């Protein structure tokens, strides 16, 4: 892992200086070259590294569409400076399923009809994974609070809660409730 190279102890007006660094994403090393050091992790993922799964919907941390996991913690990648993520392990939707298939959360979203336009979906899948990995059987209040950082304008949220129910049921080994 390479530390940012533009470090300077002198305040400078030369902000157009570009840097090179590497990010560790989904278990692989991704070099970034000639980047401005103030670019967000979301911007670097989407525009420089060809990883468009995290979506750019508000750029302000207010919608959750850009959710990724940084060192085991769910964050809005639009408010993370990519250069600050050097040395961290970054997990994105692209790396969720090792074999390219669907995770149980992704499958449940399909089964429950929790997807419409799909633009918020990847962020929600990341959030639901994060919630269920830390809280396998969340209460109603816990699940409402845990994913309230992810806005959806299409589904009305009802089917998303059904998808969570499906995952909880399936992970607990009970007979699947999918139709």
């Amino acid at each position, binding site marked *: 892992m390479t530390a940012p190279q533009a470090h300077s102890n002198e305040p400078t007006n030369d902000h*157009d200086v570009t840097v090179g660094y590497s990010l560790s994403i989904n278990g692989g090393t991704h070099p970034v070259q000639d980047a*401005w050091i*103030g*670019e967000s992790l979301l*911007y670097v993922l*989407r*525009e420089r590294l*060809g990883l*468009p*799964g*995290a*979506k*750019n*919907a*508000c*750029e*302000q941390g*207010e*919608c959750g*569409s850009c959710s990724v996991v940084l060192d085991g913690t769910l964050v809005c990648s639009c408010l993370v400076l990519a250069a600050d993520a050097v040395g961290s392990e970054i997990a*994105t*939707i*692209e790396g*969720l*399923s090792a074999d390219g298939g*669907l995770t149980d959360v*992704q499958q449940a*979203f*399909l*089964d429950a*009809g*929790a*997807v*419409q*336009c*799909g*633009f*918020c*979906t*990847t962020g929600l*899948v990341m959030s639901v994974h994060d919630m269920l990995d830390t809280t396998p059987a969340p209460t109603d209040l816990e*699940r*409402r*609070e845990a*994913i*309230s*950082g*992810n*806005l*959806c*304008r*299409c*589904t*009305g*949220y*009802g*089917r*998303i*809660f059904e998808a969570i129910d499906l995952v909880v049921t399936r992970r607990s080994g009970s007979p699947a409730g999918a*139709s």
Partner: protein
Amino acid sequence: MSGERARRIEGALKVTGRAEYAGEVRPDGMLHAALVQAEITCGDVVGIDDSAARHTPGFVDQVSYDDARSLAPSTATALIREPVVHFPGQPVGLTAADTLLAARTAAARVRVDYVERPSVAAIDQALDEAYAPAMAGRIIGASHRGDPAVALTGAHLVVRNRYQTAVNNHHPMEPHVVVCWWEGEQVVVHTSTQAVYGTRAIIAHALAMPADDVRVVCRYLGGGFGCKGQLWWPWMLWTLTASKRTGRPIRLELTRAQMFTLVGRRQETVQDLAVGFDATGRLVAIEHDVLAQTSTHGEYCDTTAEVSRRLYACPNVRTLHRLVRTNEPQPIPMRAPGTAPGTFALESALDEAAEQLGIDPVELRVRNFADHDHDADVPWSSNSLLQCYQVAADRFGWAQRPASATVVDGRWRIGWGMATTCYPAHRQPCRVRVRLQPDGTIVVQCGTQDMGSGTYTVLAQMVADALGVPLSQVTVELGDTLLPEGPFSGGSQVTASMFPAARQATDALRAQLAELGMGHDETLADAVQRIAPDGIEAEGAATANADIDVRCMSFGAIFTEVGVDADLAEIRVRRVTAAFATGRVLNPLLTESQHIGGLIGGIGMTLLEQTVTDRSSGRIIGDNLADYLVPVHADMPEFDIALIDEDDTYLPGGVKGVGMLGTAGIQAAIANAIHHATGTRVRHLPIRIEDLLHELPATTPGALPSMSE
């Protein structure tokens, strides 16, 4: 198959992030664009100096009015050809650069000189300039039947009030975006649009190009709700101009703040409504006057008063729409245009009348059921509203509705309310191509787009059903003007428009196969290999509806339970039970999800959503998703959705639209429940804490137990 709860066929691409949205296309050498936005409210642009911008490292080009003069004049090009500022934040130029930061830096360095003119920042600043537009949406703006003025004079009860609704913004999660490039004299445009063909037509007209030289692509659309159409076109055209001049692909992606100003809004309304009843609760007269905002550069009027013309049986009805021009962004249709604000007024007024007449609110509506469309004096193609009332009331438990303002659950006062919803069922011209591949699989093509409602899936279902093949063998291609022309996504019309075209295509395909000698018990796969080894295809075409002797509408009944904090007046919707009659239901899984999404959009409009304009500057303030509140997961009530199957023999396939129904009616159902819970009648949206607080008794229910540490 039709009627089955088939999973979304493009769903796997969406849950894995592999669905490619328009802004994710990455042509080599792509430039980024940014908009220069007007800092004045109203006036003329008299000078643009981009010399500082040109020194920005990475700067490539700047386009403005001068570069668009050669475009064909039209409403779509007026804003980029004529250097006139109609509203704050209106784009006055566009910069293109190697990086987004460089483009935005350059845009900030463009110096624009203006001559300001006096502005109108709100409709109440120019009430004396209100005028009546000829049309409200697709209906005549004014209507008159019978003699409502006389009937109101003689009525047993008249409920006369003013109802107001706020400006809303659509805010699909995907911001508007265009990625375009030129290939010789042809242009390829990937953009987030509810109308690939409509976009192609406007580009071809503006640039005086043959339509076939313009290709518009939108394979996946991150929501729209009405805003991804016309108002986006001017800035998109500037991007095309810059791409042509630089010879490089360019992308312009709007920011969330720009989504408040540049892509339309639900217009605010001020509605004066009078409803008169006889002693038995039958409507004798309705007068519905609507005042709404439009911009200084365009005219748009929702069909707000249409519900008063035809939802109920009433012999004397007068409606009028009026507009006031302000220096604010242009309104356009937003989910449930017209019916959302219109039902808020009418269905609130019916609730007020029910209380004063001592008649149950459901019973009052049943008594006024319109057995035909009284406005046009034609029959309904189908109308299952009475069944909707009954089914929803039963499932909600309406019969146990307590007297008002008596129920308390902990800190919550509980109230129940209901309302009717409706939306016209329209169709557009549509062509569908069905191709039987040599391997026996099916490819279906239509130049419409999937806004997220499930167009890919229902079209696959239609064809799989008609041809008797499993859904897994059908591939659907949408969102490209290389495909046969399909409808725009709006007004809940796409599914109903596709159905007859798809059926015609599958019928034609079967006829061709029969002519070629397909055996009766032969499978399609066997037949195509034997008699058409290169595959075989057929096209179907359907026309728009021209329903003159019949009226086609979807109907529904919505019941809500609302909690209001007994001290703090926080308002939460606890449960919603709704029954919707939308003809034949092709896919209950997708349909229920549409209804729930529509309902929560309506909850947002009722309790949260309000675009706020500073009255002195005319600027929108709080242009972000922390200040413009939309419902979050924690706001979701318990939903119970009943789908009332209708056998509508008039409509092709019996299909009506779905998407709008849940976003109307819910506003009044909530307002009526709030009145039931608190005794306070709020006649404006959104309804918030301050509207209820002072009329709530200032004590916490329940005694305070004695305590010790």
